[in-house]
């Protein structure tokens, strides 16, 4: 009788432990899932903003005479950029402290690198006059995400 009772108690304890472990694993899975969802959302909304920007750029190069229309086209990507930025900030607010630090370190490296690139190209432009066909100042914006992702990769590696 006692052994049956003990066996039942042990089974119940094992069941509770398994349930508790699955709950703990669930919390970690939720954190990892949040990271993945945040990454995908950021990419999709970033690409959407970039697409709208390219469309607006293309439309502005067409012969649209009306200044209000041109201004409206120029402002078109702004809400999409705001959406992208909001996604980014929401993602950062859901990160844990190490992930926030990684993000900060990535930005802390990417920003000065972008400034150095901009200043170097600025000096080169003064020195030899860069044309639009060169890798000129006009293309610095395209280098910014490259510098950010490089810095993010470097910061992540530091804590692995």
């Amino acid at each position, binding site marked *: 009788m006692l052994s049956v009772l003990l066996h039942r108690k042990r089974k119940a304890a094992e069941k509770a432990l398994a349930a508790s472990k699955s709950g703990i694993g669930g919390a*970690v899975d939720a954190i990892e899932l949040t990271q993945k969802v945040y990454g995908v959302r950021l990419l999709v909304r970033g690409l959407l903003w970039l697409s709208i920007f390219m469309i607006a750029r293309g439309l502005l190069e067409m012969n649209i005479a009306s200044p209000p229309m041109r201004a409206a086209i120029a402002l078109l990507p702004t809400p999409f950029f705001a959406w992208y930025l909001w996604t980014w900030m929401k993602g950062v607010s859901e990160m844990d402290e*190490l992930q926030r630090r990684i993000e900060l370190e990535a930005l802390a490296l990417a920003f000065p690198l972008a400034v150095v690139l901009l200043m170097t190209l600025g000096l080169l432009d003064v020195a030899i006059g860069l044309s639009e066909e060169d890798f000129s100042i006009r293309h610095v914006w395209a280098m910014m995400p490259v510098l950010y992702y490089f810095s993010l990769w470097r910061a992540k590696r530091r804590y692995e």
Partner: protein
Amino acid sequence: MKNRLKVLRAERDWSQQDLAGHLGVSRQTINAIETEKYDPSLPLALKIGKLFGLCVEKIFTLDP
């Protein structure tokens, strides 16, 4: 800063994932703390202390 997190976790037979779940952080954070590549914030250190029923100084010590 040195810490005894790995030992304390092993004593309880917890994986890094289990500990991360208890503390509400990612597994990467636990790994970085255990390998002493990252020092936790004061609230996280206190949370760790509370979880193991120890003072923070018994878990984390400054390098001599």
